[in-house]
Structure formats: structure tokens, C-alpha cells
């Protein structure tokens, strides 16, 4: 009963948040410097032409009117056209989104595996070598800009060691993309048993994924460490040891299981932030996802894609948030059963 009410409240809140996001996305075009009509026609267009274009684009109507038209289009799946690529934004987006998802998921996977292990190791031996490593990585993740780390990694592994391909896209130019199923090259090539594409896509994925992964690594490690330290010092862990469980079992089955609850929610939120971080990483590695697309749209004053991406990423973030909260129900009996 309470759960249903909670869910209802969250959904109502989500609607409000999405409405807010849409307003922001809509107003963005009016706030950003530059006139969309003029930017399309060029500096030398006459004022009359610009006014005509404004009328054509609906920019001469009142703001509420424009908003209604805009949202009507959005609900029909029409996000406007990109004048840079000459494609509907929705089409461009669908084409590029899987690349960003692949990058973000790979980064998150790396960050979770490494962050949780490092956090546990740091908690088990406080002030030990792993604890210092965790602190170091934490400082690096917070203070070093992603693109700078990306460039360093490129210098190290591409130009110096020659072990990884140059950061130009998602596949070697002589390798054909795997048959599209999910749009994630690694997954698709696995599904179609296309080993050549798998090898190539993995080689291209490693550096951007590591670069982007450093971002969520620090908070995941810190959260795991703190939650583990608390769990390890709890009476239920002491009780489990008194019962005769081996140290490994106590750490994994009892302590980690309890410690992971806050980590899970943290990981969910990081996924949202990763989409933002992906913009910079995609630029550095010419990774043709929505980040690179957004960047190029901003540079080219291509308003429709910018507006749509703000809307989509914002809604996505809100949805992930909701999903994480729902996840709590699944994993934490204190919330699940009342």
C-alpha cells in the first residue's frame, strides 16, 4: 500500500521534472547567443530574408505558442532537423546513441569492477597500499580533467607504446561494422560471432572507456570503502565470525552484501553523469556518439540538436533516477517488506 503510494508520488514528480526539463530545453534556444534564423542564412542575408525565415521557423509567435508547437512536435517524434547533417534530429540521434551507450556502459563496468574491488581492499586494510591507491585515484578522478587524462593515455598507449589504435572512431577503417542488433559493436559482434569486429571494437573501446571510467571510479571506490568499513565493524559481521564463517565468506556474503546497497544507488546516478562526461571523451577520441554530435552542433550553432539533446539527456537522467529508487525495493528488504 505505502509502496504503491510512494510509486505514484514518484511518477507524479517525474512528470513535473520532465515538464521543467522541456521548458529549459525550449528556452535554451532563446537564451543562447545568436539568432537561429540568421545563423542559417549567414551574416550577409538581408533583414527581410531573416524575418521571413523567422516566420517560417515560427519564431515570430509568442513563447507559449511556440512551446506548444514544439512539444506537439516532440510527442510526434519530430525533434526538428539538423541543418548541419540535413537529417531529422531523431534519426541522427538513434544512429549515434548506441555508441554513447556502449562507451558509458563499458566505462561504468570498468569503474564498478575496479571501484568495488578497490573499495573492499582499502576497507580491509586501512592505510594499506590499496587504500593509498584508492585515495590517489580518487584525487585524480576529481581533479584531473577527463580530456587531459584521455590525451595522456593516447600519448602513452598510441604514440609511445603503439599497442592501441589511433583514437579515430569505433572500428579500424578496414573492418566492417557488425550486423546491427543492439548498435553496441562489442555486443553485436559477440552475438554474430564476428571475431574480427570484436577484436577491433574492443581495441578502440579500451582507451575511451578507461578515460571515462575514471570519473565514476572515485565516488564508487569511496562509497564502497566507507560502507565496507561500517559493515565490517558491525555486530552482525562479528556474529557471523563467531558462528564460524570463514573470513572470505564473512567479507563477501555478509559485509559486502550489506555494503552494496548504497553503492548500487550511487552507480545508477553515475550512469547519468557519464552521459555528460561522454561529451568530452567522445571529442578526444572522435567517438561518433551523441557527445560528439552535441559538440559539433554547438560549434555550428545547430539549435535543433542542442535543444533535443538537452531534453533527451535530462529525461534520461530523471528516468535513471527513478529506476535506481525502484532498485532499492528489489535489494533492500527494509524498504521492500513493511
Amino acid at each position: 500500500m505505502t509502496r504503491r503510494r510512494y510509486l505514484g508520488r514518484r511518477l507524479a514528480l517525474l512528470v513535473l521534472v520532465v515538464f521543467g526539463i522541456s521548458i529549459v530545453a525550449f528556452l535554451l534556444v532563446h537564451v543562447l547567443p545568436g539568432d537561429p534564423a540568421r545563423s542559417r542564412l549567414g551574416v550577409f542575408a538581408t533583414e527581410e530574408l531573416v524575418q521571413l525565415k523567422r516566420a517560417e521557423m515560427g519564431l515570430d509567435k509568442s513563447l507559449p505558442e511556440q512551446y506548444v508547437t514544439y512539444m506537439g512536435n516532440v510527442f510526434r517524434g519530430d525533434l526538428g532537423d539538423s541543418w548541419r547533417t540535413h537529417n531529422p534530429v531523431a534519426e541522427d540521434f538513434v544512429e549515434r546513441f548506441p555508441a554513447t551507450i556502449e562507451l558509458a556502459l563499458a566505462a561504468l563496468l570498468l569503474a564498478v569492477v575496479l571501484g568495488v574491488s578497490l573499495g573492499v581492499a582499502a576497507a580491509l586494510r586501512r592505510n594499506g597500499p590499496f587504500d593509498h591507491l584508492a585515495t590517489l585515484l580518487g584525487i585524480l578522478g576529481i581533479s584531473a580533467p577527463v580530456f587531459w587524462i584521455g590525451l595522456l593515455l593516447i600519448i602513452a598507449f598510441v604514440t609511445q607504446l603503439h599497442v592501441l589504435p589511433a583514437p579515430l572512431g569505433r572500428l579500424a577503417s578496414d573492418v566492417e561494422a557488425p550486423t546491427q542488433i543492439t548498435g553496441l559493436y562489442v555486443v553485436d559482434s559477440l552475438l554474430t560471432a564476428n571475431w574480427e569486429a570484436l577484436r577491433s571494437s574492443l581495441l578502440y573501446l579500451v582507451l575511451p572507456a578507461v578515460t571515462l571510467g575514471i570519473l565514476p571510479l572515485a565516488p564508487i571506490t569511496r562509497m564502497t570503502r566507507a560502507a565496507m568499513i561500517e559493515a565490517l565493524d558491525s555486530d552482525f559481521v562479528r556474529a557471523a565470525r563467531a558462528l564460524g564463517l570463514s573470513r572470505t565468506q564473512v567479507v563477501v556474503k555478509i559485509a559486502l552484501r550489506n555494503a552494496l546497497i548504497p553503492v548500487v544507488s550511487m552507480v545508477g546516478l553515475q550512469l547519468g553523469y557519464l552521459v555528460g562526461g561522454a561529451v568530452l571523451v567522445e571529442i578526444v577520441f572522435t567517438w561518433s556518439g551523441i557527445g560528439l554530435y552535441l559538440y559539433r552542433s554547438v560549434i555550428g550553432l545547430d539549435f535543433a540538436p542542442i535543444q533535443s539533446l538537452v531534453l533527451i539527456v535530462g529525461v534520461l537522467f530523471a528516468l535513471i533516477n527513478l529506476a535506481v529508487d525502484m532498485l532499492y525495493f528489489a535489494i533492500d528488504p527494509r524498504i521492500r517488506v513493511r
Partner: protein
Amino acid sequence: MNSPLLSVTKLFKYFSSRGQRELRGTPEQLRQDGPVRAVDGVTFEVHSHETFGLVGESGCGKSTLGRCILRLLEPTAGSVAFGDEDVTRAAGQRLRELRRRMQIVFQDAGQSLSPMRTVRATLAEPLRIHGLARGEATETRVLQLLDQVGLEPMHRNRYPHQLSGGQQQRVAIARALATEPDFIVLDEPTSALDSSLKLTVVDLLQHVQDSTGVSYLLISHDLTIVRHTCDRVAVMYLGAIVEIAATAHVFDDALHPYTQALIASIPVPDPFTKRERILLPGEPPSPANIPSGCRFQTRCSFVMDRCRHEEPSLLEAKPGHRVACFLYAEAEREAAPT
């Protein structure tokens, strides 16, 4: 008297005052670096079917002592003999068998039960670890344990947060009883409970002892409950036992000035009763900075010159009544074997 069930001999537990690393070395060597001397050379024994009380202020090392006996903490030096096994040296299968025979109940059951597990899972765990029951038999045994601690069969499907504090403590007691131990450390088992619940839990514990013959080490600062339940009592001050005797002797004929102050602090329910209060001056010193000579000399109103230089040892002042105080040095000399 027959040989004791548990004998603790010159047990030490020192913690580093910086960081959490384990200290290695003899107590004499370690004392140079000013460690926290939580347990500072404790000797006592517990017999079968006995309830042995351990009293003292918070921070005097009672709980640390209890944990060292169960090897939840590694003692710095000294020995713990359980039956004919040396607990401090046991490892692997032998340690596991010892864990089966020695159990613990913590102060706050809400903390000592994993929030992620149902009562059934909590009670089945010790059975599984020690191979005591399988399949159907597990369920039967779980029901039996619930019955033993006065809970209903329906409670087995509950999570800890769905139980009251008293019920949680009953589950914790049932978990300790699951392996049919010979000895249970009760670490402040009633301190987190309402006074009305305290007595029911104490009654339950006594009832269990009557039917199983288990021995208890009752760690408590609740002197009323100690007086009510214990056969013998040890008084701890700053990591060391200052007095040991039968419960009646400790409460009616306390010898050590500290014990006298402790007993005098018990509230008397009759406001018109005149009683002599003994107020100890100052706070107990830090266990990282234990006074030289007698550890109680800084707060003792009977302090003599000798107390400042020499540490009194725990010697028999009257039959079965041992005290560490120079006030009884005469009796000590008479009683000491030549």
C-alpha cells in the same frame, strides 16, 4: 573444585594508538610506545553451569576481553583455554569446532542481525556452517529454536526490522543457541532494552541455562542484573580485574575501594533510605595512559605511598575472594602459600 570450562590466563590486548594495525610483541615491549591497553593482563576462570559476571565502567575493556576470548579479536598475549583446547592457538577445523561451542550475544540485536536476512536465514546459517541440520531438519530445528526463545513459528519469515527490540534479542539468543554451545558471552544483552523487557530476557537466559547447562560470561554495567543472575563476579577497572568473588561477597562485602564505589552507586528505590555514596574524584584515566603503580591510585581515597610505585597483584584476601589492593596486604601475606 573440578577443572574449569574456560580459563583465561594473563590475557593482554593492546591497540595501537595510531592507525589500526595489529601490535606484535610482548606487552612489556609494546608499553614503550604508549598503546591503548584495553585488556591488561587478565586472569580468571569460568566453570560449567556457571554465570560469571564482568562489571565495570564503559571503556574498561569488558567487551574487548569478551571478544578476545572468542578470538573475534586476536589477543596480544596470554592464553585462553577452553576445555583442553587452547583457543588462542586454534586454527582451521579446530577453531571452527570451538566457535560451535562458544557463542556470543551482542548488546544491540538490531545491529547484530544482518538486515538483509530473514529470521529463518539467520538461524539456519549456523546449522549449515557446522553441518548440524539439512533440508527438512533445518526447518524443524529453526522452529524448535524459536520455541526455545519464546517466539512464534510465523516469526521465521520476518526481517529484523519487522521485529521489536525484545524479539530481535530473542532471535540473537536463538542464533547463539543454534549450535548447542557450552559457553556464551553475553555482551550487555539487556542494555538496549526497556526495563520491562530486561527481566523477561534475563528470565529467558536463566531458563535456557537451567535446561541446557550452558555457562555464561555476562558482561554488564547493570549491577542489579548482575546481582540477580551471576554466581561469581569480576570487577574490571582500566583493563584489569581488581576484584573477583562470589556475587554475594562482591555486593555485601566489597573489598576494593573501586568496587565499593561501584556498589554504592546502585540506585536504591526507597528515597528515604540513608545511604553512603562514594563519589570517585575525576574521570577514569585513558587506557592509553594508565597510571603507574596501582591503576586506581589517582582516584582512590585510601591511596598510600606504596600504591604509587608498585602494582598490587590479584591475591586471595579471603577464601574465594581475590582483590588487587595493598589495603589487604596483611591478609594477602597470611593467605599466600609459602
